């Protein structure tokens, strides 16, 4: 993140925080998580011992008493990392850190106007999940109808990917109930003065019957006049324990590249997925779930599937077995490019089996085990199999403190950490300030 963007985020936050003065947050929830990892990273023929220490801090204040704004609250979330041992390849030299969220929100005019100012994630309609330093305002002048408008500077991700400099958008919605909503939206993202994304969207989540939920989504790229993303799904819950979903999704992967990128001029792509999923809790102790999706692209087809059985052995233990499959039947071009492993028949993908279990040895002590085996259709780096296992122990020291330790062991075809230890300490207090009399 650049200095200017950090400064802009902090300035916005400071501005927002000055709005409700004098004010006091009556409740503050805080979560502090300390993670210590240790693993050996093999890269370019050398083994590096890497020990990152990561502190994640999240603070949320609610019930801020003030005379100007209703439901005033704030959220502050960030992380910092220190590197011990050798440098981890993804990290910045020595250390790292950033502010993920820093916003103030509240409402005015008897909750007809809601606002959020600061570093935030804008969601809903064509915004997808848009991180901005800016403002998001929702106005509901009459019951059920409303308009959300937002704008600000796009937060550049940690790896300095240019996804835009500024974004603005709006969404008009009709919300007859909490569970049903229909919206029309628009988003415009600029990158170095060029239009990077310009999309119009329609979305709907409708519950015509208590057991039936229908959703639809269409995102039209107004630069290319074609569908960037479209989705239709229906979820039916004939029994409280049985849920079935059917879904069709179309995406245009090239439209997920910034239109300001030179690569946006080379290709036209589409990807279709159609399939469904289901989950059934047959009894209190036994449940099954799975999904299957057919995949169609311009250069091939395939499918992905998954089936899982879960057995709850008593009140403390859960054991499950999952099988997964991915098949891609690709065009011959992939066989010669070298960097995508395919069989002679042009197949790519894998089979996987996953055995997992959790056991509460006491209300405060949880142990979890996860064993995975992958069998690749086409050898990866000369190997057709991969194994990995994770064992974790979590102990709730008190209502406020939790500690955990996890170990990972893996045998994989590519250079990756094969042995890893992760220690975690979580401190999760809620502070309620005293009532002064």
């Amino acid at each position, binding site marked *: 993140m650049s200095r200017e963007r950090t400064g802009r985020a902090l300035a916005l936050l400071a501005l927002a925080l000055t709005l409700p003065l004098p004010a006091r947050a009556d409740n503050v929830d*805080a979560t*502090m*998580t300390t*993670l210590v*990892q240790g693993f050996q990273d093999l*890269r*370019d023929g050398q083994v590096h011992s890497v020990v990152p220490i990561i*502190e994640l*801090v*999240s603070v949320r204040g609610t019930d801020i008493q003030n005379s100007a704004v209703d439901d005033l609250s704030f*959220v502050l979330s960030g992380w*910092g990392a*220190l590197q011990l041992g050798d440098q981890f390849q*993804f990290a910045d030299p*020595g*250390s790292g850190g950033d502010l*993920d969220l820093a916003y103030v929100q509240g409402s005015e005019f008897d909750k007809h106007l809601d606002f959020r100012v600061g*570093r935030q*994630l804008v*969601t809903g309609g064509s915004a*997808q999940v848009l*991180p901005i330093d800016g403002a998001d305002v929702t106005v509901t002048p009459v019951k059920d109808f409303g308009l959300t408008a937002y704008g600000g500077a796009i937060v550049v991700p940690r*790896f300095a*990917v240019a996804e835009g400099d500024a974004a603005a958008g709006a969404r008009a919605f009709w919300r007859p109930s*909490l*569970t049903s909503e229909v*919206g029309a939206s628009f988003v415009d993202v600029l990158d170095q003065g060029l239009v990077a994304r310009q999309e119009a969207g329609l979305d709907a*989540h409708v519950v015509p019957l208590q057991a039936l939920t229908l959703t639809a*989504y269409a995102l039209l790229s107004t630069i*290319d006049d074609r569908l960037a*993303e479209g989705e239709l*799904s229906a*979820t039916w819950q004939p029994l*409280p324990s049985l849920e079935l979903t059917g879904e069709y999704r179309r995406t245009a*992967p090239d439209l997920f590249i910034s239109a300001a990128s*030179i690569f*946006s001029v*080379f*290709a036209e*792509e589409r990807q279709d997925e159609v399939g469904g999923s289901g989950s059934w809790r047959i009894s209190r102790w036994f449940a099954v*779930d799975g*999904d299957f999706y057919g995949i169609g692209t*311009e250069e091939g087809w395939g499918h992905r599937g998954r089936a*899982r059985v879960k057995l709850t052995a008593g009140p403390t233990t859960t054991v499950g077995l999952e099988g997964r499959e991915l098949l891609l039947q690709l065009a011959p071009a992939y066989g010669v*490019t*070298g960097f*995508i492993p395919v069989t002679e028949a042009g197949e790519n993908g*894998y089979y996987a089996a996953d055995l997992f279990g*959790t056991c509460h040895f006491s209300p405060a002590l949880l142990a979890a085990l*996860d064993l995975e085996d*992958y069998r690749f259709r086409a050898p990866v*780096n000369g190997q057709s199999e991969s*194994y*990995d296992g994770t064992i*974790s122990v979590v102990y709730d020291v008190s209502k406020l403190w939790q500690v955990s330790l996890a170990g990972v062991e893996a045998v994989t075809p590519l250079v*990756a950490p094969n042995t890893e230890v992760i220690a*975690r300490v979580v401190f999760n207090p809620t502070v*309620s300030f*005293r009532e002064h*009399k």
Partner: protein
Amino acid sequence: MSRRAAIAVALLAGASCAGRFLFGQQADRILFPHARHLKEGIDCSTCHDKLYDAKKLGESGVLPSEATCLQCHQDDKDKGKCGMCHSDPEHPLSYFREDRHLEMNHASHLERVKEDCRYCHQVLPEPHETFEPPKMATCMTCHNHQVDYENGRCEVCHEDLTRYPLQPITGTFSHGDDWVKRRHMTAARSTTAACQKCHDQTYCSNCHDAQTVPIPVETRYPEKVNDDFQIHRGDWLSRHSMEALADRTMCARCHGPSFCTSCHTAQNLTPAGGNPRNPHPPGWAFPGPTSHATAARDDIGSCQSCHDQGPASDCIQCHKVGGIGGNPHPASFLARHTSTEIRRNAMCLYCHR
């Protein structure tokens, strides 16, 4: 000290200070034996008379002031028996204010239950016990609240649901097994307001960070073996190219080109100067059976993963107007775009100078 190092130190220091500050809250509590007072025939309204007019939780005066207690216990105070009411008489404080995130009108409820407080408050706290508010099941015995619940009108009672570890098992927002992996995004696009009933953005940012998260979610929660949100679980590295092919937009939703190049460069997986670990086959740059041209048409996202450097991108060197690579635009592109657009789009000027 670099800016990032300063942020890291500040966060660590902040966490440490906050921890120390919060630890210090193990302070005085008011000790009140409800059972003994009731046994003596002291009615609830004797101490809690302000409840009859209280329209909100936490209103001032609902808990009796010291003056109310001293109507009976003045002698005890005069004799210095402070420990009778204060758990820490050396540092006496007023009531500890508990979380109150419910809309609760005592005045109207007292009428409905005919002033029988025990209708809802079936358990009252004794000294050194924590106050247990009535269970939600008690509220649900009322028909009105049952209807509110079924219609998702949480705000009738709950100011804020984000602090509760609830998970819908059944109903419209059933978070079934593939909820996080496939279906939550569909719901969130349209019903953000419903999501925000229970989740604030700190929950979303576990995965959807404004910045790329410092650690993948499966490293943060290795014990959640039963959850499907762990996209990079297990041996992700070996299968990342397959997963990327199976869902072309998946990687691009969170990662940009420099994410790929940082790893490929560190692993010496680059086409630089005759590198034997060059990911491209011989003849990649030239026309022929192993040419990059077909792959670029079919899967430009893969090319973009490493080669998108704006005007400095490799492709421009050969494919700019007059370059040896010739016109790279597919017919479909030429059909949609005319040469008049060049002047309006600065990106076109990278090649069309």
